[in-house]
Each structure stands twice: as C-alpha cells, then as structure tokens.
C-alpha cells in the first residue's frame, strides 16, 4: 500500500516535471536565441532600432489597455448597478440584448467594423481603438459586476434610501466600497485582454508611431534579418513581454481570484 502510493507520487511528479519542461522550453529558447551572435548588444540594438520604438510601443499598449480598462470599469459598474438594483421599462430586454453580444469575435466583423470606425472619423486614432476594445470586452465585465451587485444585501440599500440617499450616493457610498475585489478583478482581466488584443490595433491603426506591442512585433520581423537580427527579434519579444509580466506579478492575487470569480458565478 505504502509502496504503491510512493510509486504513484513518483509517476505524477515525473509527469509534472515533463510538462513543466515543455512549458519552460520555449522560454529558454527565446532567451538563448536572444543572446546569439550579438550577445547583450541585441537588446541595445532593439532599444535603438531605427523603426521600432520600444518605449513608444510599450507606452501605446499601456495607453490603449489602460484607457480601455478605465472606461470598462466605469461603464460596467454603473450599468451593473442599474441592472441589479433599479427597475425600469425594458430592463430585462436591454440586459439580455447586451449579453447576447458577449461572444462576438472581432474577426467575424472586421471589414464592417473598419468601415464603421472610418465613417465615424476614428481611423488611426487611439480613441478609435479604445472604443471597439471596450465594446468587445465590456459585456463579460458587465456580467461580473451585475452578479456581484445582486449579492449585496437589499437591507443596506433600504436603510440608505430611508436616510434620504440618492441612487448615486448608494452607488458610491455603499456599493463601490463593498466591491474592491470585483473591481480589481475586472480591471486586471480587462487590462490583460486589451493588452493582448492583436486584430483591432492592426486593423484600425496605420501610423507606426501609434502601434502597441502586438502590432509592433511585425515591424521587428519584417526588417531585413541577418543572424543578428534574428537575435534582435527574440530580444524585442522578451523586452515586450517584461511590462505585462511585471503587471501580472504585482496583480497576481487579484488576477487569480478574478478568474475564479468569473468562472464560478456566470
């Protein structure tokens, strides 16, 4: 019995190590390749690249993901509050109509979306990327917010209304203070989704100076590539990953509980 258990653990440990090796392999490869031929100079070359501006790509990504996140948090919490606690004509209809769009992939409407943003005069502008980033990501967040607000005891609301608080006061003084973890979840998830988005910025931006990291990868890749430049490509990819890994490390706790909140409640 004991032996059998030890054997099983050994096997499991081996499986785990094998899987971990598979996960580490690409990362190690990227590191090793990034130092080939040019050594650490590859990193320097990327930072001084004639066409690819690392800091501007990172800045753009932070601007797009950060801007979208702020908008998503504000509008999804406001709407979540209304859908959870207010009564108005068409409430259920509106809520269902919005959630029905939750699964729309960006890819399914690329050309119409491009034409629409263009006709709104928003092509090749940050705002023109933030609006669709919000539209395609906010509905999941709405679901999270509403589910959370549904769970806040009704007595709190009633007590406050008797004291003469107006809805906006109930929202800011009671609901928001009770929503710290959910707001953190929604923020971190929105940030990660928007940071990772590839198609929208590629579709809607044409000035290289506005490219976020996901679009800037191509700039590094299609430069004439000598041996050194392959190393530089990897160096660039690693450099571009660093900021999001740092954000992830700092917000790890929220991110993990955020994933769970989303999964358990919907």
């Amino acid at each position, binding site marked *: 019995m004991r032996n059998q258990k030890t054997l099983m653990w050994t096997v499991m440990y081996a499986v785990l190590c094998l899987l971990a090796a598979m996960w580490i392999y690409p990362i190690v490869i990227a590191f090793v390749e990034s130092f080939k031929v040019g050594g650490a100079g590859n990193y320097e070359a990327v930072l001084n690249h004639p066409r690819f501006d690392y800091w501007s790509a990172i800045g753009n990504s932070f601007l797009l993901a950060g801007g979208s996140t702020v908008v998503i948090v504000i509008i999804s919490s406001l709407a979540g509050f209304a859908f959870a606690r207010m009564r108005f004509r068409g409430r259920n209809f509106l809520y269902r109509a919005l959630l029905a769009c939750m699964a729309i992939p960006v890819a399914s409407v690329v050309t119409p979306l491009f*034409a629409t943003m263009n006709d*709104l*005069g928003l092509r090749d502008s940050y705002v023109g990327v933030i609006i669709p980033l919000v539209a395609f990501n906010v509905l999941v967040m709405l679901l999270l917010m509403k589910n959370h607000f549904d769970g806040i005891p009704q007595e709190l609301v009633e007590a406050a209304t008797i004291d003469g608080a107006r809805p906006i006061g109930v929202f800011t003084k009671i609901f928001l203070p009770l929503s710290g973890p959910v707001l953190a979840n929604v923020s971190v998830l929105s940030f990660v989704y928007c940071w990772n988005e590839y198609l929208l910025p590629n579709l809607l931006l044409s000035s290289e100076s506005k490219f976020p990291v996901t679009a800037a990868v191509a700039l590094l890749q*299609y430069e*004439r*590539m*000598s*041996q050194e430049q392959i190393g530089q490509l990897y160096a660039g990819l690693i450099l571009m990953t660093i900021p999001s890994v740092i954000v992830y490390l700092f917000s790890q706790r929220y991110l993990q509980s955020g994933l769970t909140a989303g999964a358990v409640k919907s």
Partner: protein
Amino acid sequence: MRTTPARRRVLAAGAATASLALLVAGCGSGGDDGVAEDGSVTLVYRSWIPTVDQAADIIDAFEAENPDITIQYEGAEGAGDYLGELDNLILAGEVPDIYGIQVGSAFDDYAEYALDTEEYAADWIDGIKPELLDSVTTSDGVVAAVPILTAGSEFYLYNQTLFDELGLELPTDYESLLAVSEAARAAGYTPFAMGAADAWHADDFFVWLSTQFGDGEAIYEAASGEGSWDAEPLVAAAERWAELFNNGVFQEGATSTTIYPSARDDYLLARKALAMPTGSWHVSATLSGNSETPGSAVEDDVLGMAPMPTLGDNEAKAVSGVDYSIALSAELEGPKLEAAQKFAEFLAVGEGQQIWANTMQGFPAAEGVSAELSADENPVALESVQIVTDALADAEFPRKLTSENDGLENDLGVVLQNIANGADPATELATLNM
C-alpha cells in the same frame, strides 16, 4: 459615385453614436488639400517599392528640379501589406495622389480610382516600350497606369563562394540540378531555398515552368477561360513542379516558407542555402552597394544570379512584364495634377527612370534607357546583370496572368501548394476551372 450605400447608411446612423464621434473627430485629419498659399504643392506617393533609401535619392533629384513640389513618400513593408493599406485608404475615400499598382488579375479593381493616362501622359507615353501598355489597360480599354519597371521570372540568386567551396558548378539542366542539389544536401546545405508559401511566387515559378510544355500557351488560355486548367501541358508542368519538392531540390517545408523574410533571410543570407529561386529584381543583391547583404552571414561572399535551367520539354525562357507601374488619383486637379504629371513623367521617361534603373531593382520600362553600372563591380555581378538583361530581352511570354477571376493569384497559389504536398495534379488543377 464615391459615396457607397454603406457609407450613406453610416452617415444616417444612430444620433448617439454620431455625436460621440463628433466629440473626437474634431482633431481628425482632412482640410489640408496639399496646396499651400505660396503655390507650393505637396503630393502623397504610396507604394511598396522603392525602398525608403532609394526613394530619397529619386525624390531629392526631382525636388531639386522642382522646388515648388514636395513628394511625401510612404513606403510599405512588401506588396501584401501595401495592398491592405491601400484597400483601407480607398475604402476611407482617401486615394493617395500617386500610388503604385501591380498588373495582373487585380489591376481593374485598383484602376477604378486612377486617372486615365490620356489626361496627363499623352505627350510622353510613347517613350515607354509600347508592348508594355497592354498590361496596364483595363478591360474597358483605358490605359490607367504608367509602367515604370519590368521584371522577369524565374531566376535564382546564388552564393558563388559557397558553390566554389563545395566544388560545384551551376546547373544547366534538370539532371545537373538534381546532382547539385544532392551534393549540397550531402554537405549539409539547403540546395534551393524556395519560398512557396507566397502565392505570387509559386505562381511566378509555375507560369515560367508551364511555358516549357506544349506550345507554352496553355496557362494563359486557362486563365482567360479559353482553355482548361487540367490541360495536358499544365498537368505535365505540375508533375515536374511536385518533383522539385519531392526530389530535394527545394527544402523540406518549402510550402511553409515565405520568400521574404524566410527564404532570403533565414536561408540564403544566413548562409544555409546555396541558392534561392526568385525574380530578376534580385540581381540588385549581387551589386556592391546593395541594401540586402550588409550585416548578414554572406556579407563577404560573392553572389550571382542566373536563369533557372530548363526543366521542361522546351527550352526555358524568362517570362516577363510590367512589375511596377504608377497611377494618379482620379481626384487630382489644378496645381496638384500638374505637379503629379511632372513627377510621373520624371519617373517614367525622365531622370528618375535612370536613377531607379541603376539600383537594378527592376529593369527600365522606358525605351533606350539601360542601367549604368560602375566598372569596379565584381565580375560575377556584372556578368549576372548581363545574363539577366539578355534573358529578359529574349522573353516571350508574360509573367502575370489576366483573368476574370480577380482572386486567381491566391487560388492558383493554393493549388500549387497542395500539389507540392502530394495532391493529384490533374484533380487539383481542375478545381480552378470556372
């Protein structure tokens, strides 16, 4: 005309969305029509060639002659990216003042936004080789673009130093091609780094190959709908095409290799391949001042270019045609039109043609112009230029197919990749029959 149903519908869209747009649209572009108060003109020129460096030389020369005109050049990374950007600009109603245009099955789509050359080029268009004008004529018979450069297929760029190291000679026929390839593989090198993931390049190679079977016309008849795609010469050519992949002339996974950047950068310039099939424009890489080899593993090697040897029943000849032409936006008028007209003339039959031809990125479309090369160039480079020039002069068939099917380039590329990966040639080709 320029307002589509779609655009009109958008203009009438929900007031909420529209007002939101107004908030942010205030800072948008527009307003600037390119003519300043002092009468100086700025023109936008969009294209995928020349490279930014080459463009600077050409534009500097033009602006020196015409101080009132500024050319704002916006180059894209390769033709594929360029077309995507151009599509978006056209859809946005912002056709560039001057834009590069490719001949072939998609020509009509882009020629729709171009000014008829009658309007601006009538005086000097006969300075261009007359046989080139056919391919820049729309199906309605309008000559909609000015040919600037010609190119031909199929050639290969090779590493002479590596050939010498391995003690190999350039192949002269199919047998020697197989032998050279085997020797290269035995020495641990990729013989011919083929970029067959790009539909256009697979097409170029196959069009060239198909002219070596039957009377050589089969592929043009099939494209125009007069013949069938599974005609005997085409099937024979497709079988030979598949053999090149199966017999190790091309590298493993060639149908996943793009010509740029992979075949060029990861194989030839990485010194892992003996040679790379490509078009005549690549003879530029053999010259000392070229922009491609510096910094690469073949920097100190001697590169050369030669026509692919005969692989079919008939003697191989290059297929050639207009590689690059420019169109002027149909919306140009007044001083901008005059300025654009000057620039087009400069590029097509003037000094610009000579400067560009000297880079060897393409061959001159104008009569009586030929590249002026420094005599200090390496003999292999000089010989390569000569061989390629002669091969183009000797070309009989066009490089690009014209067809009712404006997606033919991509469709044929897919069929060729499937055949290279083992699909039955006749059945595959038959899927192209309309």
